[in-house]
């Protein structure tokens, strides 16, 4: 599959923006300036960027507790995202959701989820709705290796297949579910092995290789959009950070982290593009600069926005006010 230079630059830019966003969050959280807790996707940007770039703007995404990258990649406004993490009324969810429930329906992101594997059946239903409405959209559903051991994974995949729903399931296998290793918790080494149990091909890609992710997801999205039904892609990635910010990671081998950090999807694509002359180092530096400026604005917006008024807690429960 050929990927245009422009598309490749878009992928790089997308990852750089995610990284910039996540690093800001990391630092703000460490400084005690964000309430709650956060799960960051640093190191996994290739999956969010690669997969989302294969979508149309009216396509849908179901995300996870580690969802900032998915939001940024799908086009969510980073200022409103940051305001959400600052718990402000200008946030994507008016300060009601926070990191674990961040959502932006205007760009098709139907939510992070505080429940592991909570998104898979919702994605199947979005696929069903797409089919019923004949809208030609596609739904992309992210989930982790840990989620693949929950029952709803099983039920949702089966449903998507028997109804031939336009859903692309993307497993971000970072080898860990919190402190529990995938190799311990899962009966099979590759989550993709399970795809056959639903009559699907289990495609495995290197999630640190953004182009590979993009290629596989694009193919799956095209097939789904054409009525070919769901697809299953497992992207092998490395979680650079702790499970949550502040996680001491006593359970994890330092060498594994170091190895992961040596395989940076951003560096990889950047080096390739620079090498091919598709994107000069100056252009890459400019992407970084732009991302930093965007995040400066996002943080400024988040910081300066007002907190919600207490009584706003009673709003948004029902469409029809009681």
């Amino acid at each position, binding site marked *: 599959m050929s990927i245009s230079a422009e598309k490749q630059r878009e992928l790089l830019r997308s990852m750089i923006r995610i990284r910039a966003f996540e690093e800001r969050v990391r630092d703000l959280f460490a400084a005690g300036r964000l309430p709650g807790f956060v799960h960051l996707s640093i190191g996994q940007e290739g999956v969010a960027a690669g997969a989302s770039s294969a979508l149309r703007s009216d396509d849908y995404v179901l995300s996870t507790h580690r969802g900032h990258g998915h939001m940024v990649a799908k086009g969510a406004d980073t200022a409103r995202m940051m305001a959400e993490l600052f718990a402000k009324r200008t946030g994507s969810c008016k300060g009601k959701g926070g990191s674990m429930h961040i959502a932006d329906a205007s760009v098709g992101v*139907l939510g992070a989820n505080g429940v592991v594997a909570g998104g898979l059946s*919702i994605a199947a*239903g979005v696929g069903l709705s797409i089919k019923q409405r004949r809208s030609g959209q596609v739904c992309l559903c992210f989930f982790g290796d840990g989620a693949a051991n929950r029952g709803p994974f099983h039920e*949702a995949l089966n449903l998507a297949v028997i109804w031939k729903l336009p859903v692309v399931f993307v497993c971000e296998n970072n080898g860990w579910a919190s402190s529990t290793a995938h190799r311990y918790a899962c009966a099979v080494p590759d989550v993709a092995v399970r795809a056959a149990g639903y009559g699907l091909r289990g495609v495995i890609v290197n999630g640190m290789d953004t182009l590979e992710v993009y290629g596989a997801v694009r193919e799956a999205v095209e097939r789904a959009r054409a009525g070919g039904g769901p697809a299953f892609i497992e992207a092998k990635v490395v979680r650079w950070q702790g499970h949550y910010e502040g996680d001491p990671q006593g359970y994890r081998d330092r060498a594994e982290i170091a190895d992961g950090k040596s395989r940076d999807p951003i560096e990889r694509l950047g080096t390739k593009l620079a090498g091919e002359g598709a994107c000069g180092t100056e252009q890459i530096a400019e992407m970084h600069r732009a991302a930093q400026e965007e995040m400066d604005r996002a943080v400024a917006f988040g910081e300066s926005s007002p907190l919600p008024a207490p009584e706003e807690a009673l709003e948004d429960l*029902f469409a029809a006010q*009681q």
Partner: protein
Amino acid sequence: MRKLTMAEALREALIEEMTRDPRVFLIGEDLRAGVPFGVTKGLAELFGEDRVLDTPISEAAIIGASLGAAITGMRPVADMHFADFVTCAMDEVVNQIAKVRYMFGGQVDVPLTLRMPTGSVKGAAAHHSQSLEAWFVHTPGLHVVFPSTPADAKGLLKTSIRGLDPVLFFEHKRLYKMSGEVPEEEVLIPLGQADVKRPGSDVTVIATGWMVHQALDAADRLSQDGIEAEVVDPRCLAPFDKAALFASVRKTTRVVIVEEAARTGAFGAQVAAWIVEEIFDALDAPVRRVAARDVPMPFSPPLEEYVLPQVRDIVDAVRQVVG
């Protein structure tokens, strides 16, 4: 007026709403065959299999999928088969359906109706007899409807389907075959309006579902002794029509609360709490509750009868408060 069974009335509501709005569809187990209560039988022939979706035994996925469809432009009417199996989709109902609108700051509407065949039915035993409505009354973000007559069932189901918020719609298994008058013309009953099923002056008996009929039987018996019970059917547990209940209690000054659920922690406890918190001074006697005994539903008929609230229990409770 013509008479329909509750199953027929519900079916009519589904037909009318599916005819009216192409976004309405049905999803659940064995819907096409209409197993086990017959409500949806033949609807696939009328509307096509695309709008009457039989599913695998995958409660979590069915309910989760209904949510996904609801927030992207469809209006699913899901069927829990037996309310007992909501335990298999509890995360989807409680953590997802009830909360997405709020968590997302109002970005999405959730026009979803979940039909819940509920309550005891002779010999169905512990896994097919439960009355679990109290859990959902205690779950902010859900509406909980529980009609007792065919007409109420029809009017409330239509309203539920047209609304933009999730509704858990309890249908008592013993009432599917009970018949009652149902107007030919379209009636939409708003959620949150109680109905006085029998006026009376001496005591307020508030009852839900099948127990409304038990309460009416009890009222007839009591009437022979000159005690006139007012039977209030809230019809919706959430939103709940406090005004109607309070008006009745202010008039009668005495209350008996009747429900089929296991007694401790049931919805009736909340009703008692509302009364004692908000109109304590109107009360001339302790509140009495009639409910099931606190055990799983046993199989054997004499045990089942002993566990379930009986008409005589209601009569006794009323005598205690008016005595």
